């Protein structure tokens, strides 16, 4: 890959792609002071290390990146090096400006992307819960960068479609690798434990099966089957177990109103909560609470 540095608005090559803020491949031979100080990223950034060894800080955590590694920096996250410059080596990166990004599952890429809306939500959620922005041994990201460069400089027919497809592909590759790296794809009980923790931490969120599946790195059907095999319940029924269990604790140990408890544990109304609760336990939440307070 040869060196280049494209940036909006100076680089005409990027004008057909307003969502690409920067695209670059740089071979660093001499240290340039203050070329890579810690700063907040406005964009979604992907880096790929072709050669060298870099010590960076991403989102407050120090990382050492080696050749073949990739790094992800989310909008609003801080990145850079404590030394303030890039060590000798070769790196590629791309900075993309999504129309919208927020940590609770909002990601709108724009009409250039063919990733559907619900999958974008899953991607946003997944990127946000991820605490390891460095992906080791992701050579495939290197070849995507290579192709991106070829397309954007060659400008052969259909290149604008290809460029956007390649960015989609980069995003999907990174997200898939993230789930695999976090789970090693081996220990379902272990990854399920992590998912369960995420469900508990956001119990009032209206979870979708698609969203849960992507956190485990599986398609929805395969995910549902795995969960059913492992827990005996469909993902949503399993979630109801957690919700009711939490609600029972709140009914017994607090004076919160049934409506507050219902909404706090993710039921969409106190009616919905009461019906589900009674179907399972034979008691309405109010009867249940009264029963447990007066009983000795």
């Amino acid at each position, binding site marked *: 890959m040869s060196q280049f540095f494209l940036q909006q608005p100076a680089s005409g090559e990027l004008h057909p792609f307003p969502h690409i803020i920067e695209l670059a491949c740089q071979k660093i031979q001499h240290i340039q002071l203050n070329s890579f100080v810690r700063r907040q990223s406005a964009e979604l950034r992907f880096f790929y290390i072709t050669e060298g060894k870099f010590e960076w800080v991403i989102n407050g955590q120090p990382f050492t990146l080696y050749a073949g590694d990739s790094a992800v920096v989310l909008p609003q996250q801080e990145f850079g090096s404590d030394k303030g410059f890039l060590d000798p080596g070769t790196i590629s990166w791309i900075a993309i400006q999504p129309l919208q990004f927020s940590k609770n599952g909002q990601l709108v890429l724009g009409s250039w992307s063919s990733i559907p809306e619900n999958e974008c939500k899953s991607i946003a959620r997944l990127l946000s819960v991820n605490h390891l922005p460095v992906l080791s041994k992701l050579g495939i990201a290197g070849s995507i960068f290579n192709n991106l460069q070829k397309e954007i400089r060659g400008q052969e027919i259909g290149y604008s479609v290809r460029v956007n497809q390649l960015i989609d592909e980069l995003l999907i590759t990174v997200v898939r690798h993230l789930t695999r790296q976090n789970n*090693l*794809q*081996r*220990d*379902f009980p272990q*990854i399920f*434990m992590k998912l*369960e923790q995420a469900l508990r931490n956001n119990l009032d969120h209206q979870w979708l099966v698609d969203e849960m599946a992507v956190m485990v*790195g*599986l398609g929805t059907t*395969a995910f549902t089957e*795995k969960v059913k095999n*492992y*827990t*005996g*319940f469909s993902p949503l*029924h399993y979630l109801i*177990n*957690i919700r*009711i*269990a*939490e609600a*029972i*604790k709140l009914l*017994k*140990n607090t004076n919160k109103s049934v409506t507050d408890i219902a909404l706090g544990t993710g039921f969409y109304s106190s009616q919905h909560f009461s019906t589900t609760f*009674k*179907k*399972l*336990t*034979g*008691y309405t939440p109010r*009867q249940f609470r009264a029963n*447990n*307070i007066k*009983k*000795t």
Partner: protein
Amino acid sequence: MDCIITIDIGTSAVRVFAFEMNGKAIGFMKGSYPTFHTEPIYSEQDPEQVFITVLYVLKNFLTEKINTKKYKVAAICFSAAMHSVLPVNKNGVPLGNAITWADNRGKKEADDLKKLPLAKTIYDATGTPIHPMSPLIKIAWIKRHDKERFSKTDKFIAIKNYIIQQLTGECVIDYSLASATGLFNIHKLHWDNNALAYAGINADRLPAPVPVFYSLHLRREYQVSLGLPAKTKIIIGASDGCMATLGAGVWGEGKATITIEQSGAVRVAGNKMIRDSKQRFFNYLLTDGYYVSGGPTNNGGVIFEWFAKQFGVFNEAYGIDDSIHTLIKEAMQVPAGADGLLFLPYLLGERAPLWNANARGAYFGLNIKHEQKHFIRATLEGILYELYSIGKILEEHRAFSTLSINGSFASYPLWAQIIADMFGKPVSVNNSYDSIGTGALLLSQTEMGVYRSLEDAAKTVSLQAAYHPNKKDHQVYMKYFSVFEKLSHKLKDEFEEIALLQNL
């Protein structure tokens, strides 16, 4: 037609089975719940989630497999994992999570108690080894380290007691589960004064002990929501380990059973407690005057799974079963004894027979000819040598001539054959797909008069597919076992040193 339902509240899941009165299986359903490790050595469960899961599975099971098929539930019988502790207040409301058997927070309390002569007195009376797993130690820990919870606690109960209390309104504990608390005098069938004094509580802070045949009735609300008649008998039942032993048909002298799930155990049964001078064996009550004795290992199937995760080939996401199959096939290409490669499986420390939390794993005897497949074979053999070592010492107290095996790992033919070869005894595989459920069925049938006694019930367990020991391989294993056994003792000091460095 009448049927019997058994409910096993296990370590990670509840399993519900149904049987016709003659013992024919009708169906099965399970539901799992999580274990929380807020600290590495902590192991807790949410009693409400366990309860809701039990209720949900039972309800679905009744709806799908029982009520719609014109079966009438005559009895529901419970079994459960041992050693859990759940503090509840005077209204029966849980004060936080339940502490499960795997929780090691009481390590120091256990170590300290073991040094006192009181340890032997308590062991002789309660039959439970002094270990952080036992509620005796856990309650002592709560008293020392969680004073606020201790003072708010009206009763220390087990998860099983909680579930049954929710369903029936009665807070009682069966002799069997009580006998695994380290607080129950298994000879006199009441809470033991010395143990209570050590734990720092009175007997009224524990549930009332009742026989395993004790029966109760569902609260009206649950009769309605589950669609069960008021007279449905709820039999309190026993612990999972005792049920599995009964379900394996082990009753009286001459028989032993080996269970290999994540952990493992070797068990025998009889009308006397095994008084091991080193306190290595547990003695739990199956019923009044009848003891299930044996030794548990931490390092069962979980170790082979560890190996598979590290070195196995994964062709599909989360395909560990597949990977384990492939590894076992490769292990078959290596002769007995793994050409001299030995494995000490103590990755999780060890309970019986070493009772040393600091024990660690090792491969020993490596030479330049060993290949990857030797490691597979050695890993498998190491896990089974450990079970053999428990069985060997157990036999010093009570001889047995036949073995039955159960549990998900024991059912692999290679594992069964190696067990037969190591012990030099014929091995049968338990016919029923779940020996705990079978045990609970036999207990219910006995209660309902189908059998005159548990002994008669145990005799009906049919065993199939015997594996016969190969003499030559037996000799090979015995030679290597002698090295294995010496190593596991010789390395005691080094285990301490390395554990200290690992700081686990």
